[in-house]
């Protein structure tokens, strides 16, 4: 148990580093680049995303992953949550991974973004538990 846990921890660190490195090199950490994607003035980021999805789709076909990836219901949580996320993304320029990558790059203003992300993440539990009571699709 101990040994495999350390292996997972190490893998997580390496995979995270590859993600952060890639997000930075692709330009997901740059509001200039992201904005160009959103207003269709430069399709490079769109192609990155579409390409990654396409490659993943092929890989999932070829590999025996079974049904390890869960399906998400299409309900108000999914739709409203995604809308809120999209608004925040265009407003801050950062999805959660990109915000962390910005910090790594030295973009100190990302601290404000991250402070917001943390606040929003923490607020969700009490707000959903007490006010909304919408199903979360997750028990673990």
């Amino acid at each position: 148990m101990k040994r495999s846990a350390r292996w997972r921890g190490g893998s997580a660190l390496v995979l995270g580093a590859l993600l952060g490195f890639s997000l930075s090199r692709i330009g997901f950490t740059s509001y200039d680049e992201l904005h160009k994607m959103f207003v269709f003035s430069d399709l490079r980021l769109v192609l990155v995303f579409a390409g990654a999805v396409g490659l993943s789709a092929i890989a999932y076909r070829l590999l025996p992953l079974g049904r390890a990836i869960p399906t998400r219901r299409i309900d108000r949580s999914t739709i409203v949550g995604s809308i809120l996320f999209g608004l925040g993304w265009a407003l801050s320029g950062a999805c959660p991974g990109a915000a962390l990558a910005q910090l790594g790059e030295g973009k100190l203003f990302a601290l404000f973004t991250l402070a917001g992300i943390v606040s929003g993440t923490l607020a969700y539990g009490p707000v959903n538990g007490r006010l909304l009571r919408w199903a979360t699709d997750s028990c673990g």
Partner: protein
Amino acid sequence: MAEASGERVPCPHMTSCELFPAFSQNGFLRVWQINYCEADFARCARYQRSLRGEHVPLTLLPNGKELPKGIALQDRK
């Protein structure tokens, strides 16, 4: 919610619930699946806790009781 119509909407948290694999495979434990996961899952203590955004421990049963925590003390290699 779904009691009156008689239709059974299964619990939306099934795929991520740590206890669901045990409930759905072992015949003896299927009684939990039939009474909670596939019936009135809103009664499930695990479901309720997850709505509050709190961590749902492996040892929490749908009826709110907890499995004894110190079951296994030896390390697995």
